[in-house]
């Protein structure tokens, strides 16, 4: 079985610096990582490979070439090959353009199934899996919280999707795109200490636009259908806050407030 994992490298959203004057995120010093949901997809694929060693896994990402060391780490934990789709022309692509680039590559690739995450922590859109599914005309489901490992095959997958109200089970015909969530608990392992310097360079391919042949107008900022015109860190209205303590006077203040506003 051949599994392709489509993954995104994202900045650590917990620790980024923001230029409050220019209203931009300073990307230089934010470190990149595999998007957490996408990491679960690789984690699941590795688990399937453990079950049936003839499984081969390819990781595909559209990213600047600077992610190479991170991609190599993925190869050091058992993923077979990796493809980095990277071209200056693709920079600034929105989800629409990104999905088109990825789909063009995937349409020429062989696979039994495509695994990915449901949601990226930087863009927060969840568009790409659905849009690739649309372009490749594949069945698709996201928000998967569990996949039945024993029935997972190149013709069928059974899985559960957890929402706030319910846990639903589904069956999907393969090939399909399956989007996992962190709730699935599948883990992308870390590189073991002894493998930290393993040479995996022969298993990474970097492809540029000379392979995918997009016209300049179809990709990047110009090929996008949406554009970010500004960002800002949220501010909240400051309330004229009144500071009291838990002594009777303070409690009475709270009591009167609640009474005035008719909570009591």
């Amino acid at each position, binding site marked *: 079985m051949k599994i392709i994992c489509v993954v995104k490298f994202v900045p650590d959203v917990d620790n980024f610096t923001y230029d409050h004057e220019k209203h931009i995120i300073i990307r230089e010093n934010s*470190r990149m990582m595999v998007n957490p949901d996408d990491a679960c997809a690789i984690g699941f694929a590795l688990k399937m490979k453990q079950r049936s060693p003839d499984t081969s896994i390819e990781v595909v990402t559209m990213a600047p070439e600077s992610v190479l060391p991170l991609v190599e780490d993925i190869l050091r934990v058992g993923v077979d090959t990796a493809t980095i789709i990277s071209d200056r022309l693709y920079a600034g692509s929105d989800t629409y353009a990104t999905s088109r680039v990825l789909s063009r590559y995937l349409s020429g690739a062989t696979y039994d199934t495509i695994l990915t995450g449901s949601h990226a922590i930087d863009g927060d859109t969840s568009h790409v899996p659905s849009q690739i599914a649309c372009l490749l005309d594949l069945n698709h489901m996201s928000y998967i919280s569990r996949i039945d490992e024993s029935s997972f095959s190149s013709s069928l997958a059974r899985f559960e999707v957890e929402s706030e109200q319910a846990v639903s089970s589904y069956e999907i015909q393969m090939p399909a795109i399956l989007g996992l969530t962190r709730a699935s608990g599948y883990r992308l*392992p*870390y*590189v*073991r*200490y002894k493998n930290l310097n393993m040479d995996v360079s022969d298993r990474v391919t970097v492809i540029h636009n000379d392979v995918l042949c997009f016209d300049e107008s179809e990709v990047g900022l110009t090929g996008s259908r949406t554009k970010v015109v500004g960002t800002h860190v949220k501010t909240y209205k400051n309330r004229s806050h009144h500071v009291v303590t838990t002594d009777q006077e303070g409690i009475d203040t709270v009591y009167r407030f609640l009474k005035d506003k008719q909570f009591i």
Partner: protein
Amino acid sequence: MDSKVVLEQLKGMLTVDQINTDQDDLYDAAADRYKKYAKARKVLNVPSPIAIVYPKDTQEVSMLLSYCNEHGINVIPRGGKTATEGGLENWKELTIVIDALHLDSICKIDTYNSQATVQAGVPLQVLEDELRKVGYTTGHSPQSKPVAKYGGLVATRSIGQFSTLYGGIEDMVVGLECVFPDGQISRIKNVSRRAGGPDIRHIAIGNEGALCYITEVTVKIFRYFPENNKFLGYLVKDVETGIKVLREVIVNGFRPSVARTYSPEDAAQHFYHFYENSCVLLFMAEGPKGIVSATVNAIEEAVETYKDGIIKQVDSQLIEDWFNHLNWSQQDIDDEMLGMIDNDSHAGYTTEISADWETIPKIYDAVMERVRNEFERAEDLTMLGGHSSHSYLNGTNMYFVYNYKILCEPEDELIIYHHPIQRIIVEETLKAGGSMCHHHGIGKYRSEWTREEHGSAYYMLEKLKQAFDPNGIMNYGTIFPQEEGMKYIQ
């Protein structure tokens, strides 16, 4: 010898309920908090002991030790299980843990002579609570007070938060009883002082279970005046200023019970609500009124002397509040364990060193510099700082604290993160002439540097081991370096 045979023979010596072979308990006994993360994740690489035994009295300890001595069975003495340096970790296939569970009686509280006698398995908190009822205190308050037991506290040369006033455990132990591998029971009598040759209490105190099993201790107890406690806190510009103020107070002859300086990073963990990105200097003065007020005056004078480095005084209440929430209960320890199972993180590590006044700030700066520049995973550090918390006439300690995002498999955590940092701290300390082990003991992982720590005096230490434990059955790998154990380190 075969473990089955050993278990059979143990049954001949003890009752069934004194022998524990529960698999989970044995796994738990295979390591202490040094390998806490790997342990929580169930990936320990060390063997489990074959049994945990619970002797009921000194005679049984003696019988067990001589049996193990005769058959070359490794023995790990155990108390409250709060060891942090591998003292409880097992490196031998054939090991028995001798747990002080049933050595739990308070033998005597003698307020007139200011001393109390307890068995090794009495938790510090239990004695403290008893003493408080009669207006006394042990004066001993390590952060692990609710859990640690007297045997362990003495065996590790532990120290408490009030040490500047009351001293470390070695200043408190008046006499003790211990058992050697050949079964010999020795009692060191309780006198106020003597010149009867070398002070042999120190063979047992700090032996970390590598020379003898401590069964009973007599400690000093102190009148307690909690109503007089006073707290003082300041924000200071740098660690060095804080340490200068500490020194000023101490060398002028004053003994606040708590006297600490925190680096901003460490302060952030405790005092984020007021530390304002600076160092925190704090004191607690304790004792009779007159002493407390004299101590407070002396602190204020010392602060005045170094006023250029003082940013401002903080509300005493903030210090007192913090102090009241400092100790770790068993629940906290269990919580951290649970957290480590669910999350890729723990509460961090510490390495505690000591040196004289002028050297400590130098070590501190050198360590910070080297960790930031040399440590390969420096960008994963979420915290790197320290505090000085135990001061003496000639110097003080530095308690380095650090934590990091654990971006590796649990099996590799120590080798990727903790060891490289610890190595830098130990190297810098030894290079500057300080001690690499202020109060947690050497345990197993710092045994790599025991020779260097002691230099030519290692000869004396080694002779003790040869004399008292010729068969090497006591806590294999602890304090004394063992080539064979290196596989568990690297």
